[in-house]
């Protein structure tokens, strides 16, 4: 069995004077301290990629910098699903007996090191170089296309999307490290400037600096927090090659993760779902079984996803308001779920959750990882 024995993070936002490595080191040091482990006890290292520090061997680069000599180390790339994919791999490595204490870490300083304009240009390049990029799309444009089709088929409105931006902002307000905490209204989201129709500024996550880390161990820690289930699916890379933008067939991935954990959907107490855009969050909730098609916003309005609801959702504020620092942004969902399950979420703490369901999405609904975390 594999257990999360410690988590750590930095605040998200504009963090001047940092580098991806220095941010990763801050989060890693916190995670090690929480796990009660010394550097020489870390025998495995998984890290993501950093847009501000493209390097062929980021894991060994970080290991040398931080002072680790792991027996197993490499970077991993699955876009926004990288954080969840690293946790799944860490679980498998521990279960296989390969490692006893793996550090999973990611950090980036896209905002101060690169700037929003440069990040937007760079990120657009994940589109197809020959058959998409020549038309001048952006990541919001890829998701704008997804949104147009999904909303058309399932009767979702722009106000439905806006509800999710408002909820994430409400949740971020209680997190001391969140990038955006000022409350917003549905009307303000709808009136925010157009980016890629139907998506507006407040439907889109920001560009942030920040880092997150966690330690996955063979020994059960005090928090008794087990990585109970995991599953992946990778249906396409490019939005223009996706089979159906109104049905991504992710129910099977979510169900396999829940079966792996031996739980049903009714056992879930907490949700941490990737939210690069409001539409991403709405679709993923409906795909993974937490709302019927076209009804996620109705469930939100009924209070289901609020901090005191049946399924509290992204209680740190998600990518939309806590912030999006590349791979660390996806890892932040997992760090928050771990804190909630451990009862250490402070003012954000929801009532005694035991089971969390998480889902990460990379590319344009391209790479998917579902996870179940459970307090034993």
């Amino acid at each position: 069995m594999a257990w999360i024995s410690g988590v750590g993070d930095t605040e998200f936002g504009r963090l001047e004077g940092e580098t991806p490595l220095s941010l990763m080191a801050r989060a890693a040091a916190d995670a090690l301290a929480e796990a009660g482990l010394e550097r020489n006890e870390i025998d495995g290292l998984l890290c993501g990629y950093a847009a501000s520090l493209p390097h062929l061997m980021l894991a060994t680069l970080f290991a040398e910098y931080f002072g680790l000599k792991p027996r197993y180390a490499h970077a991993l790339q699955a876009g926004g699903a990288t954080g969840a994919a690293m946790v799944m791999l860490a679980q498998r490595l521990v279960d296989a007996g390969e490692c006893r204490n793996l550090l999973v870490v990611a950090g980036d300083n896209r905002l101060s090191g690169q700037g929003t304009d440069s990040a937007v240009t760079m990120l657009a390049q994940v589109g197809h170089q020959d058959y998409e990029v020549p038309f001048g799309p952006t990541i919001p444009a890829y998701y704008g296309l997804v949104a147009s089709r999904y909303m058309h088929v399932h009767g979702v409105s722009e106000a439905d999307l806006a509800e999710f931006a408002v909820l994430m902002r409400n949740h971020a307000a209680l997190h001391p490290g969140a990038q955006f905490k000022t409350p917003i209204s549905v009307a303000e989201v709808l009136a925010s400037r157009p980016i890629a129709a139907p998506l507006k500024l407040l439907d889109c996550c920001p560009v942030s600096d920040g880092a997150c880390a966690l330690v996955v161990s063979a020994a059960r820690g005090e928090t008794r927090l087990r990585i109970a289930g995991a599953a992946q699916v990778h249906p396409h890379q490019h939005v223009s090659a996706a089979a159906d933008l109104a049905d991504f067939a992710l129910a099977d991935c979510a169900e396999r993760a829940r079966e792996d954990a031996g739980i049903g959907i009714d056992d879930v107490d907490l949700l941490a779902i990737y939210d690069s855009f409001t539409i991403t969050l709405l679709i993923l909730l409906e795909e993974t079984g937490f709302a019927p098609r076209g009804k996620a916003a109705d469930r939100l309005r009924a209070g289901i996803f609020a901090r005191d609801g049946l399924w509290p959702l992204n209680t740190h504020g998600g990518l939309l308001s806590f912030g999006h620092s590349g791979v660390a942004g996806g890892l932040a969902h997992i760090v928050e779920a771990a804190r909630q399950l451990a009862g250490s979420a402070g003012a954000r703490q929801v009532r005694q959750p035991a089971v969390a369901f998480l889902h990460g999405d990379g590319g344009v609904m391209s790479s998917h990882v579902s996870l179940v975390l459970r307090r034993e």
Partner: protein
Amino acid sequence: MSGADALAAHFWQGCALGELRYQRCRACGAAQFHPRRFCARCGGAPDWAVAQGLGTVYAATRVTRAPTPDFARLAPYDILLVDLDEGFRMMAHGAPGLRIGERVRLDFDRRGERALPRFERLGGRS
């Protein structure tokens, strides 16, 4: 030039000549838009074909926040996914305000170094 580059060049040369080139598999008959030396469905050998250029809007967005200064000069512009009658989907520019389900006809926008596929309204919703 790599294999992929040669195939992309063939596609874009077609655009410059006013032709929308795609592939059809000799073995299974599948249409394939991103050209390859093989059919991604069955592994068979594809042949080049030329589409008529008629299709239906599958998805649509209007980009206001452009990725580069060059595109910022063009903004706002509409990007579509269009289902061509021959059985493949492609990304292209579209005339302003085209909506999902509208029938469209291909044209080429010769602005810049490339002739960029762009769809115009054919008239009537399908």
